[in-house]
């Protein structure tokens, strides 16, 4: 099982409910195959950098998941057949770099530490 990142661009004319429905069809099989959905990010409607099938916008959804490689191939096949999916891309997720996050934390702590000092 590997950690993957899948980004799907849906047709912008799909309603919220339909997108949810489609997403269930993505996340459902992951859980069934013994995988795990780690995070689902909805970027919402975004302008495309170029036209895809005469469409200017797309509804972006980004999923982080742990899946067996065979499922990724199957997902790819299904996305191709699905006409409401304009584009999709699955990549192996990069190993988390712990460097960037503590940085933000440090700043937060500094700010927190500074405020009481000023109060005293």
């Amino acid at each position, binding site marked *: 099982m590997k950690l993957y990142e899948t980004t799907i661009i849906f047709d912008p004319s799909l309603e919220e409910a339909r997108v949810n429905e489609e997403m269930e069809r993505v996340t459902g099989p992951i859980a069934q195959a013994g995988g795990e959905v780690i995070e689902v990010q909805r970027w919402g409607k975004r302008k495309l950098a170029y036209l895809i099938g005469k469409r200017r916008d797309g509804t*972006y959804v980004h999923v982080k998941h742990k899946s067996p490689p065979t499922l990724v191939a199957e997902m790819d096949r299904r996305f191709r057949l699905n006409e409401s999916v304009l584009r999709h891309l699955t990549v192996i997720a990069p190993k988390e770099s712990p460097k960037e996050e503590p940085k933000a934390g440090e700043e937060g702590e500094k700010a927190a530490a500074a405020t009481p000092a000023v109060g005293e």
Partner: protein
Amino acid sequence: MARDGESRSFRRKFCKLCFDKVERIDYKDDRRLTRFITDRGKIVPRRISGTCARHQSQITEAVKRARILALLPFTSEQYR
């Protein structure tokens, strides 16, 4: 006054990404990537941007992925 021949001031190029201590360039970060493509959508070569080999190869991969997801253009349409 600058002497002849030295009037074109040389400035050593440096990798901006190393300077910012960027660990990994993400294909989803299209705002950062736009700095490394020309207005025609081409990837800026290392000799121009001065990026180091490590970061340049990361940029290349990220730009190509971002293009698939229509975050970045393959080509700028106005030139067609």
